[in-house]
């Protein structure tokens, strides 16, 4: 591993912890019954629509003026305090060179915060340390897919990707990633 990469990964670590604290709306959480009804289980039996050919369902009783449109959002989730505590534990383990243990912490964090780019960048960092660069590259890409319009995360992700690609001998890919980072 070259010097440049380690410093960059280190800088990334700091950035991630900062980013983890920045606020942004999380995903919409819907309790059973949409939060209006009771949450008793097992749920009441379903009301089945009458059998009809496909396409089948009759229009709902209340037709909204415009159909509810498909949902999207501009950025992924931020790390919850629980996930952040696991990421910090992983950081301590990584600093001690205990990569395998760090990865188990990060996978726990990923299960808690599966839509946060930071977790995937961290996993990438761990796999870089384990010298499994192909995996590291994939986790960086996954993190980038969740970075949304957060330019700090985007830049961190593209630079990380550039380093990993360079280390894998993919110079063109590295330059491309670097250019993406520079364009932000």
């Amino acid at each position, binding site marked *: 591993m070259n010097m440049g990469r380690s410093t960059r990964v280190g800088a990334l670590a700091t950035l991630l912890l900062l980013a983890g604290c920045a606020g942004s709306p999380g995903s*919409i959480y819907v309790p*059973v019954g949409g939060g209006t009804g009771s949450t008793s289980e097992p749920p009441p039996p379903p009301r089945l629509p009458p059998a009809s050919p496909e396409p089948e*369902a009759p229009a709902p009783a209340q037709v909204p003026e415009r159909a509810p449109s498909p949902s999207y959002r501009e950025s992924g989730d931020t790390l919850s305090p629980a996930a952040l505590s696991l990421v910090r534990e992983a950081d301590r383990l990584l600093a001690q060179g205990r990569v395998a*243990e760090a990865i188990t912490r990060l996978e726990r964090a*990923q299960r808690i915060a599966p839509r946060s780019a930071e977790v995937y960048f961290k996993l990438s960092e761990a796999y870089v340390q384990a010298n499994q660069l192909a995996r590291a590259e994939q986790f960086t890409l996954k993190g980038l897919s969740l970075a949304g319009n957060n330019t700090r995360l985007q830049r961190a992700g593209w630079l990380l990707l550039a380093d990993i690609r360079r280390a894998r001998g993919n110079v063109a890919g590295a330059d491309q990633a670097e250019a993406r980072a520079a364009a932000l």
Partner: protein
Amino acid sequence: MAKSKTPPPSPRNARTRSRAGFWRLFFRVSAVGLVLLAGWMVYLDAIITSRFEGRRFEVPSRVYARPLELYDGASVSAAALERELALSGFRQGDGVKPGSYRRRGGQFWISTRGFRFPDGQEPRRRLTLTIAGDQVVDLRVLAGEASPIVRLEPAQIGGIYPSHQEDRILVRLDQVPPLLPAALMAVEDRHFYEHFGLAPLSIARAMLANLKAGAIVQGGSTLTQQLVKNFFLSQEQTLARKANEALMSLLLEWHYDKDDILETYLNEVYLGQAGTRSINGFGLASQFYFGESLAGLEAHQIALLVGMVKGPSYYNPRRHPERALKRRNLVLSEMEEAGLISAAEANRARGLPLGVSERPSYSENRYPAYIDLVRRHLARDYREEDLRSEGLRIFTTLNPSIQYAAEYAVRDTVPRLATGEVRDALEAAMVVTAKDTGEVLALVGGRDPAFAGFNRALDAERPIGSLIKPFIYLTALSHPDRYTLITPVRDQSFVLEFDDGRRWQPKNYDGEEHGEVPLHRALAKSYNLPAVRTGLDLGVDAVAETLQAFGVTSPISRYPSMLLGSVSMTPVTVAQIYQGLATSGFNTPLRTIREVTDAQGEPLSRYPLEVDQVADPAAVHLVQYAMQEVMQEGTGRSAYYTVPRQLTLAGKTGTTDDGRDAWFAGFSGDLLAVAWVGRDDNGPTSLTGATGALPIWARFMASLPQHSFSPVVPDGVSYHWVNDERQALTGEHCENARYMPFITGSEPEQHVSCSGALERRIRSWFEGLFQ
């Protein structure tokens, strides 16, 4: 002389000679007998030592569910938490004693026992938390190491047993509460540490004790003899058998020291039956009858287990509580007499109830379909005999709450889907995975989830019908220069003529044709003709390659009919390929196992999270838009009869000819689920994906708290207001305006203004003012 030299045999001589002959014969027979006996002893010795050595190490593997992780914001309902606690062996109590919990309304107090996970020890803790809106809030650790996140002990969901179906939890003599071996010896074998395997005197003493007590409280055979008897399942009481037992007992004592024999006895003795499995040893018996580890047992519980040695089914405390209580109190008196407990302790203990848990805290493969998949995954790395005997600990990804919801949805919905013969023939399967980890959370292999038969989730290969369409359009949308979500595609029939003269004329499900429709609507409404036209335009090979990239490993026959889903897959394979659609183009291999450790908890293998980008996230984002439209305006919208409106979902229906297969595959922000309904004989039904599989899927989704599906807009995608009929940009408040994603550069260039919607536009100008 010659005569005298050879006198005729005198009677005396004859007698002498015959006596000598007798002795010679006697010695010969004895010698042969001794040799035979020695041989027999060697034979017995070989048997007993191999049994002794072998049996001690044959321990089934244990399969655990995923542990429930508690932290602020964790999604779990109060009912689900309570069920989860029960599965993990917690009992309602004061919430202070380890293994107990208390609930008041939404607030819980939980006292964990601690557990050794592959990644380290989860310490004992006392904690409190509140469930509000199906989420954990205000989690606090009251005692024990502070942490913002706590793992409960995982529920044991099954085992992989030795072929003789014995189950045990190994204990070491130095871990056992000392009262147990002491009580055992007081009742069964007072001179265990002195005798040589047999104790003729104690037989007499036992008879005396029995007379005194007016009942049989002591048996004559030593623990060593009992152990030998236990090694052989046959209970016949012939003299030969008794003699063999005695010989083997001597041999055992000769080979091994007393502690070794005692420890093996503690792990070997038969203490009950759970279905086909036998409960062997005190370690498992303690779990089985009290739901607690041996170390936590009190005097009255130890007395009950010791008392049961005499007749585990006769004194079964669940079936014959009075008998068991009488027997236990007798043992307590014996313990008192032997000075093991004080009179006061004995009195108090005799007054206590049996303290047996209601049902075995641990039930036999409750989830046969899921365990089936776990075993297949294990078979890649482990030999069957090791799984059966090495006491491995297998940590799976099963989520009991989600499994419960999936089973409920299948069991409750399938009988309502049809009537008469078709209803009785209907079968179903369901696969649920965690959207971003690929962990298989639940698996249902048939309409009766408890039945361990044909596992349809893994083995029913059926044509997937319209489930293929997202992959056709994904292939198309990966060429933004040729296709966007508003590209008009023709819904008009055509005939394909093959070289050999055969003709193929695909049709829409309802036989109608809709002319030119925008691509997104063709997918949402699942029109067949545009899908086939688009697929043929791209080439069957291109679509097949997309499917392979997303995880199809079996060969795909590359006929045009493939574009209508003639390709067959199992529900698990469908879950695998939809994973990539749900995660913006990242193939995430499905996993059921996180870790395997040996009996001591040392890690053997880990199955880490893997992701592999197989498609452009931008193109997948467009498909996700249309798959949400399926739920809101298309063939999947009846889901919202059951599911709350706020829960945004994406999915796709699939139906094959004559309703032979009804599919639904889709996802929320957290979960991906695939449901299949059909008949094992592949017969027709009147069902479609929407009327057969979707009701199960929707029932399932509605019963779990979760996050809405709301994908992050990937790099290179921008949203625009467009008029999809005219393929043009338009104003937000125009009629027919839709806010749609485009791969940057592929958005339409021309702009249409709308004059006809003035009223709405005026209203919109004021909207901001009054909100």
